[in-house]
């Protein structure tokens, strides 16, 4: 499936991230589940999430956006991708 920032919307991003978590963390979670507080993933996995976001949606995460709160939940990551121009809201 090839999508671009123009054709992709927030739901596509959300679906992609839930699938990624299912594969990599072997867990099916709700979009508002706190991945780190829930102990589901280690802090090193946060970096994997950053890299995945950058590769899958063509965004660059840097500066002030590079904080754990932006990666706590699927919803937060989706909002970050939209905000960074990787998908329509």
């Amino acid at each position, binding site marked *: 499936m090839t999508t671009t920032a123009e054709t992709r919307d927030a739901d596509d991003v959300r679906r992609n991230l839930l699938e990624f978590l299912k594969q*990599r963390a072997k867990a099916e979670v709700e979009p508002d589940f706190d991945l780190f507080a829930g102990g589901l993933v280690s802090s*090193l996995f*946060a*970096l*994997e999430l*950053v890299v995945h976001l950058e590769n899958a949606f063509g965004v660059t995460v840097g500066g002030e956006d590079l904080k754990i709160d932006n990666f706590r939940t699927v919803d937060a990551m989706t909002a970050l991708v939209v905000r960074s121009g990787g998908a329509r809201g």
Partner: protein
Amino acid sequence: MTNTDPVAVLGAGVMGTGIATLALGHGLPVVLVDVDDAVLERALAQVARQLKLGRLMGGLPRESADGRLITTTDLSAIVGARAVVESVTEKPGLKKEVLAAATAVIRPGTPVVTNTSAIPVDELAEAAARPDEFLGAHFMNPPYLIKTIEVVRGPRTSDVALAAVLELLGEVGQQPVVVGDGPGFVVNRILQRVINEAARIVQEGIATPEAVDALFTGCLGHRTGPLGTADLIGLDNVVDSLHVLLDRTGDEGYRPCDLLVTKVKAGEHGRKTGKGFYDHGGVL
């Protein structure tokens, strides 16, 4: 030397790369030296990822610009360094060789630290051109996330060298705990033995790695159990450190158990190879 001169890091393995990230993330220039171009190539990519991870987790300041990184196989590139951090493989002979060569190149008055896990500082100081300018700085992995560092003062370490290193560590946000010299210092004299015993328990079928670590995290409040920690350190490094401790103490409790030795032989070195006591699902 001035505070704008680069920090030289010798060895671009897991720790050398992490130490380079720590300095760069605080805006200090770094010269990273290794004998292997492929290792340096990999380190460049790692540093870029680690700078992100460090900022993400709040271990590195978000506001400061990255320092400039130079990677090279040419040891003479460290000539103008502000300080030298030796972080090559945990083999006494190799470390001495590198320290002798490095201290012949740098200006007198340049402090040199070893990131050895367990070799006594004074034993390595033999190889340094100026043993009084030499001490231990045992960074934890990953150094850009863990702020406490074990600083080891050898019997010949001067006040001046210690002060210069403490100042540099302060600039990169590290909180030093200064201790005396001896095999394994404090952390590894205790930790390596605990890891060895934990591995032996798994080997004897008394408990799984998960069970051992669950007891340490749940009952004792450790952040990770001994075997999760071992995977983070690297089982190859654990075995090397145990040999260093065994050779210097004669204490059989440090003899690496069969399970550790077998895993290292099978290339299961922990996180850095994707598998150790745990499956890390690929190399992070």
